[in-house]
């Protein structure tokens, strides 16, 4: 009897090497809950948000209600005390919809809540962490400048101590959530010591201004901004207890870990789309999926994403054990972004002209992943980290 079409379910090829039994029941529930949320609250709208270049203002509250902001932090600060594996899976499910959704959560959790939790005073923690967890407050992370990206030590932003305040001056560029933010984590060089310090800056302080960058062809469902700081007075109690670039780098290490998981979501989104499309699309009288050259590309996608999944999972367990060295995180960030980007480009191509429209997700993912390849340490920067790991020689 001719029946309904059955297709490989998401879980089947997405978990080709059976990681499922290795997750705890809580990790599985968290993954499923976020997946359902994404399916009903984000997927129906994401194409429109991306095309119009908007990040909806109501989303942070929804994220907060679901509990995906600061998931690894203690309950008393509004976190869930979930594992890093759970945090990774949250990222993957969000990025299955769009890298911009994951970006928001990465920035809020790893680049804003994490430094306040790790380096902030108890007062700062109590003042900000619960509000950031509920989505009532939004944060951004200002490290990059127009003339200092891969080489942040070369930053120009300065902090001048005047009595009980620091006065901040400088420009930050490419800052995710900049115009939405209530607080900004700003990294600046202390004038007298020339050391990099971190500050929690309330964005309504006089002299602080944020302006969106409107010309992006990538990450369009995420706000990316330029920050201008003109004699912004920050009380010394808002300074983070860390000196040097290592403070900022420890935050990036958290976010990069999340990206190693996140991009798999985008990659699997493209892979599924390509698998489905090539099954239905007829060329020369036969489904595309029946052609050897097409199968070779689908096989590569499955291989790349499966290896990436195993790498991410194992990195998470290492991290839970405190053994996520920066070089390991560099490898996972670099190679998983490569796997996802290669998959997205191949999927885009297999969809032919349809792959050119945002009615299909592949081109949107592909364009987003160009940002992901650049931010949080470019592909080259991570290659140089790994080269240094192998040779012991700094080639930056």
């Amino acid at each position, binding site marked *: *009897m*001719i*029946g*309904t*079409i*059955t297709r*490989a*379910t*998401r*879980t*089947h090829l997405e978990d080709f090497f059976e990681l*499922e039994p290795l997750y705890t*029941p*809580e990790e*599985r*529930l*968290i993954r*499923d*809950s976020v997946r*359902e*949320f994404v399916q009903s609250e984000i997927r129906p709208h994401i194409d429109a948000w991306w095309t119009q270049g908007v990040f909806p203002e109501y989303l942070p509250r929804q994220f907060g*209600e*679901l*509990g*995906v902001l600061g*998931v690894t932090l203690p*309950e008393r600060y509004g*976190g*869930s*005390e*979930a594992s890093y594996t*759970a945090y990774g899976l*949250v990222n993957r499910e969000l990025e299955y919809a769009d890298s911009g959704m994951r970006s928001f959560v990465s920035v809020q959790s790893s680049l804003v809540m994490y430094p306040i939790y790790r380096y902030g005073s108890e007062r700062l923690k109590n003042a900000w962490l619960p509000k950031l967890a509920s989505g009532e407050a939004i944060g951004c992370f200002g490290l990059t400048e127009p003339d200092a990206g891969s080489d942040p030590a070369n930053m120009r932003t300065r902090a001048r101590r005047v009595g009980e305040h620091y006065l901040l001056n400088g420009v930050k560029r490419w800052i995710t959530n900049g115009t939405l933010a209530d607080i900004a984590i700003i990294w600046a060089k202390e004038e007298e010591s020339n050391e990099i310090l971190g500050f929690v800056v309330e964005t309504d302080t006089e002299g602080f201004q944020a302006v969106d960058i409107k010309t992006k062809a990538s990450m369009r469902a995420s706000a990316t901004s330029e920050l201008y700081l003109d004699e912004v007075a920050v009380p010394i109690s808002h300074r983070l207890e860390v000196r040097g670039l290592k403070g900022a780098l420890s935050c990036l290490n958290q976010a990069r870990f999340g990206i190693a998981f996140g991009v798999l979501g985008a990659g699997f989104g493209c892979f599924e789309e390509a698998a489905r499309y090539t099954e239905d699309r*007829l060329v020369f*009288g*036969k*489904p595309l999926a029946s052609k050897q050259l097409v199968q070779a590309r689908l096989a590569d996608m499955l291989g790349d994403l499966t290896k990436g999944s195993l790498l991410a999972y194992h990195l998470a367990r290492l991290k839970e054990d405190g053994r996520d060295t920066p070089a390991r995180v560099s490898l996972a960030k670099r190679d998983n972004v490569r796997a996802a980007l290669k998959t997205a480009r191949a999927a885009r191509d297999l969809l032919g002209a349809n792959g050119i429209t945002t009615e299909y997700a592949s081109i949107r993912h592909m364009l987003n992943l160009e940002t992901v390849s650049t931010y949080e340490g470019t592909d080259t920067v991570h290659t140089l980290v790994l080269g240094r790991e192998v040779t012991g020689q700094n080639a930056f």
Partner: protein
Amino acid sequence: MKIITIIKQVPDAEARLHPAEEGIDLDGVTFVIDGMDEYGVEEALRLREQGFDAEIIAVALGPQRYEEAIRTALALGADRAIHIETDTVLDPITQAKVLSNLVSEEEAELVFVGGKQADWDSAALGPALAEALGWPHSDWTTKLDIGAGTLTVTHDTDEGQEDLSLPLPAVITTQQGLNEPRYPTLPNIMKAKRKELKKLPLDQWGGVQAKTAVVGEAIQVRERLNRVIEGDPVEAARELVRLLREEAKVL
């Protein structure tokens, strides 16, 4: 007052099931809490959120793997859970008997049961439990209000719908439309880990003898033919109609 919500675990509706030599191969299948049972949990939570003072107890009768469905109920907001663990397949009448003992012992006054099992389509457990307890029952319930000692409900009938009022204690079986279940939030999922999940043996209230035994099972198998009809559209349509009529016999 105590509210008990009965939980089952069923294969995910999207899962692909494989027929095996004997019955169905469930290896590698994802299991989830039955959607109909989720309505029950959600309704109990809503009663409490409306200010009704209630302890919500999720109860399951089934194999060890049911534990994950129970955890979902706890993550949604149930206060504690009881799992009567057994690998024996029990018919609804026998299940109802076992569960009625537990309901009485807990002195619960309101029990929610899923309207229809998503896997084997049985709708018998709710009415059977009401019968075993000697309590009033509303099936296919789509709306529920609670007053002092009474419930007012709307439920589906074959021809339409009916409004009923029932004294407590009562058994309510759910129907789609009763509510829109929430997602378990991350903090609640983690907090659920600390909630009590009590395990009881099947023979807690004496020996259990199933009234019927399953001697074989089979599912409807659907396979795709992967057949592509070639030729011009008019010809192809004609061929398709012929196949549907003569081979598939669906026309």
